[in-house]
């Protein structure tokens, strides 16, 4: 097979001769004209265009789902479409990092302002919705906003690549497409979960806290109070240890400020906190099973690191040991309705937390157990 192919122009059959010449000329032309790169760029641009069409469709669907949800739950007096459209491209300008001192405080302030703006808008749009429903509307709004941002960014890069005919830029976007679609698909699936109030993978930490509250409070009347913004504290007892369980207030879609809650508890306890145990969902490595439990030390909390910083500062100053229990999930699973494997993982994590309390604390100690995550669908 190789030998005849090397016989370029060596045939006396006119058909083969013509084909040999054509292929020879074609390859020479492709190599020296740079047409190969152009053809590849066109192929990649077509792939990016397809993703943009999909993202635009999902973004529009996200907007219409949000509007429909507001109409159903909020019974607004005026049409919410224009206000929702206005907020679909809402931006947060991140603080200056060139002068890093106090950057997290500045970021927290901006995040607080952003949240209060969204709270106000949702309250204005959905006056008839209760607190949990408003939280779910806000989460749906956020998912729609994320889809819109993805669509705008990819479309921007597509036009830039097309205009400048920059092969490297087009290739870099094409390479990132599969990751972008993973995130986009996750946000798209999250729309349904948020609309219906279903628990999502990100809420696994909060679910573990709820399982423990349910178990420890079977025989006692546990007190629950709001200790920080959207965060509840349940004081329970387990094997002669005082267990203070912290989690976001459910079943609405909230994350709250668990960092602030932990800091408040440590400050109020006057040095009586023996240990802090944090439970959160963490990103798994490809090939790992979802719902796998991993133990470690440190503040197990994601997000913009404002809450993590507060916890780290307080536990360091008071010398309180921090344990972390991580339930492994993928990025898609974090935003989609909770899988059975992850729900089972939450029960295993609850057992692991009980073991940690028994093994690493003494009778009479006070322990903080913080279940981190979005409480949607978890009471």
């Amino acid at each position, binding site marked *: 097979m190789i030998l005849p*192919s090397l*016989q370029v122009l060596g*045939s006396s059959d006119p058909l083969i001769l013509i084909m040999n010449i054509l292929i020879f000329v074609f390859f020479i032309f492709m190599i020296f004209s740079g047409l190969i790169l152009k053809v590849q760029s066109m192929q990649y641009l077509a792939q990016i265009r397809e993703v943009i069409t999909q993202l635009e469709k999902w973004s529009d669907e996200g907007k219409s789902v949000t509007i429909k949800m507001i109409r159903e739950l909020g019974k607004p007096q005026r049409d919410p479409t224009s206000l929702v459209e206005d907020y679909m491209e809402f931006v947060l300008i991140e603080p200056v990092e060139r002068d890093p001192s106090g950057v997290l405080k500045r970021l927290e302030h901006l995040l607080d302002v952003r949240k209060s703006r969204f709270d106000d808008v949702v309250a204005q749009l959905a006056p008839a919705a209760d607190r949990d429903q408003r939280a779910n509307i806000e989460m749906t709004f956020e998912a729609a906003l994320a889809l819109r941002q993805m669509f705008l960014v990819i479309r921007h890069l597509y036009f830039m690549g097309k205009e400048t005919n920059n092969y490297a830029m087009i290739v870099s976007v094409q390479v990132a497409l599969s990751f972008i679609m993973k995130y986009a698909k996750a946000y798209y699936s999250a729309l349904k979960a948020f609309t219906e109030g279903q*628990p999502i993978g990100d809420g696994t930490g909060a679910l573990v806290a709820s399982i423990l509250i349910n178990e420890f409070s079977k025989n006692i009347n546990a007190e629950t109070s709001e200790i920080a913004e959207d965060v509840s504290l349940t004081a329970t007892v387990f094997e002669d240890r005082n267990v203070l369980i912290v989690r976001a207030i459910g079943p609405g879609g909230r994350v709250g400020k668990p960092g602030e809650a932990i800091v408040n508890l440590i400050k109020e306890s006057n040095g009586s906190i023996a240990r802090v145990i944090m439970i959160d969902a963490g990103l798994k490595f490809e090939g790992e099973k979802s719902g796998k439990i991993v133990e470690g030390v440190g503040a197990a909390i994601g997000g913009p690191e404002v809450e993590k910083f507060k916890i780290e500062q307080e536990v360091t100053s008071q010398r309180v040991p921090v344990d972390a229990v991580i339930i492994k999930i993928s990025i898609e699973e974090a935003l989609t309705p909770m899988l*059975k494997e992850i*729900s089972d993982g939450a029960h295993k994590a609850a057992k692991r937390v009980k073991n940690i309390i028994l093994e690493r604390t003494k009778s009479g100690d006070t322990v903080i157990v913080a279940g981190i995550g979005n409480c949607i669908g*978890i009471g």
Partner: protein
Amino acid sequence: MSQRRRRIFNAVLFAFSGALAAFGVYLIYLHLNASFYDLLLDLVSGIRNQRLFYAILLLIFAIYPALAFSRSKPVKERKTVAVVSCYGCDYREVRDFQKGDYVFKKLGGCSACDSEQYISAIYSIPISRVEEKEEAL
């Protein structure tokens, strides 16, 4: 790409692949039904093998777009279910998720004992697994 443009693109691609495949088959025909002159020529130029080479090349080119543009497998549909349990007995029921359900929601008295029923878990499973479960029941 819009549906109409995709259909036109697929039709053109299909026609092009068909033409390549037909030409490839023709070359195979020539390879198999070589004349005495071709066989004589083949001794010095390897013309029959060249025809076979191009035939295979053309057939690969014809099949490639079909493989490259074939649609990926549809994603498995999933369904969210709620597990209803009882604080007092071993009662357990898996039912479809309903709007307003949440984990640890209290559902009222148990039909088997006097204790309270509650939702102990909410999770999503592939629809095929739901069907299997229903069949088993």
